[in-house]
């Protein structure tokens, strides 16, 4: 895990569910096949209703047409990010598109767990609501160890919460790497 993550923000609202992050029709792609896996990047966040895509303005596609990667590497969300189905395709799709971390007030349990155990991205809890402070396109610098985010565009600073007891798994890069380091797996 990098302790500083720098990139452009893409802002979404509350209760962003996994059907919006990766609509069910794309789940036929096999994430274990590299040729198919990249399509999860292409369709990441494609289920978000247009008006809510890239707040506050909306109507900003997360991934440009026919591209596999997004120009945004940090997602800013509100409450209950990643609710809905248990599909690991959701954090995987964001990671394939180039997302390194999500900043949200809090997460749905399975999305948080999948992000951590699969080592896809760092799910960070913010101390305050950022959806109304950060705008899509703002340059952010997330300083995980120092516990805050710098908004370079607006010259603002926001606190984030400690990652807590999942730090060892995140630092190891996922549950398999963690279990190996602990001697639980060969």
């Amino acid at each position: 895990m990098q302790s500083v993550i720098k990139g452009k923000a893409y802002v979404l609202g509350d209760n962003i569910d996994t059907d919006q992050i990766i609509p069910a029709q794309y789940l036929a792609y096999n994430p274990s096949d590299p040729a198919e896996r990249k399509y999860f990047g292409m369709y990441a966040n494609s289920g978000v209703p247009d008006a809510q895509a890239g707040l506050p303005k909306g109507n900003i596609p997360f991934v440009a047409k026919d591209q596999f990667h997004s120009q945004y590497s940090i997602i800013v969300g509100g409450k209950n990010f990643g609710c809905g189905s248990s599909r690991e395709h959701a954090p995987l799709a964001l990671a394939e598109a180039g997302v390194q971390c999500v900043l949200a007030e809090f997460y749905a349990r399975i999305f948080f767990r999948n992000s951590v155990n699969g080592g896809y991205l760092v799910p960070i809890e913010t101390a305050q609501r950022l959806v109304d402070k950060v705008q899509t396109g703002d340059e952010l610098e997330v300083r995980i160890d120092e516990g805050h985010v710098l908004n370079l565009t607006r010259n603002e600073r926001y606190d984030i919460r400690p990652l807590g007891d999942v730090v060892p798994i995140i630092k190891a890069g996922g549950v398999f790497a963690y279990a190996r380091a602990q001697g639980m797996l060969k």
Partner: protein
Amino acid sequence: MPGMTITEKILAKHSGKDRVTPGENVWVDVDVLMTHDVCGPGTIGIFHENFGRDAKVWDRDRVVIIPDHYIFTADEKCHRNVQILRDFVKEQNLRYYYDPAFVKATGMPSPYLDPANTSYKGVCHKALPEEGHVRPGEILLGTDSHTCTAGAFGQFATGVGNTDAAFTLGTGKTWLKVPATMKFIFHGEIPAYLTAKDLILAVIGKIGVDGATYRTMYFAGDGINSLTLEDRMTLTNMAIEAGGKNGICDVDEKTLQYVRKRSTRPQWEVYREDKDAQYHSVYEWDLATLKPMVAKPNSPDNTDTAENCREMKLDQAYIGSCTGGKITDMIFAASILKGNKVKIPTYIVPGSTEVHSDMRRLNLRGVPKDKNEKSIEEVLRDAGCILGPSGCAACLGGPKDTFGRLNEPINCISTTNRNFPGRMGHKKAGVFLASPLTVAASALTGYVTDPRDFVTQRIETGMAGVL
């Protein structure tokens, strides 16, 4: 020392401890791991990548694979995914696999002809108990968020992702944070115009889609005991819609009767709540005061009473899924539709092939029909409903050619469990979640309709869905 909840006792037992407390992280032994065609291929890939191409699963009798999501589609990737499951079952010599044998490499598969005579089962959460894979006191993990359904049988059941599932495939273990328990007590017997769907929508409306995040939802009281097991499954099924880690009910004679008849293993352990168990919070309802509920677009906690939504015009009705496609759901719907004609296209999808076969075998009272009686399926067809084969179908949208999918921005009332944007297909379609009674009543009028307009007496479901 304070007492423990059922969930805490199950997690303590499976982690080799005397007691556990909420917030503690424990490594537990898993009893059964389930996967399906959407998450199976990814899980299998991660398993091979981490344990090696020749690795074996931890126990071939404890891995259950149930293809159900994308079965009736011409999408070749979906057929390929079923083939990945078949290859894995063969490679690992797995004992419990329910093959949609009619899925060949190309074309729209033609469904089973006789639902009583096919290896294919349909929706995993309905098939798991039917095929004997759920038991009180056990831990069930599944690569599907509605795995929590099995909590109706007094077990700890929760959904996990592919990486977690792959880890369990190889080791038989997983780590869990012990959840605090929220207790929901229902008093009185359930009135004829309500089903468990109304109860759970009332709960979610009250606490919100994040109201139980990281926690157990324990459903208790004489109101819950008065429910059939199938109706209890409707409650626990939607625990995830409040963000819950698991939902759980007490084990009673109804549970034991079902499990004795079906379980693939002869033993299980029944845990009970201690009188002084600690709860995060306690909520109570009197069933006599509850009204038929709907969740309006686009969130399961956007609830209202059906009577308040009477003006809402609908374009389609849908009765199916692990939440609302059980045999008792079909009896509820058919009791209202009997002798009437639907005003809007009404799609019916049996939750499992057993449900489908019971729809042909049973009458409206849930007992085997005699020669002159109509079957549940006939009643539904006579009312103008369109019946599809068992499976997840349009519950989660799926490929464009999926039965009942909302391909236009229309309004649909549905017995399913989620109505987030795009859930049943079109991003701009509106989905109203409701009980099978409310959906059937609404199908007859074309507007959201309170089933109290139609239900005059108690609807008996006999032993349907049990024996």
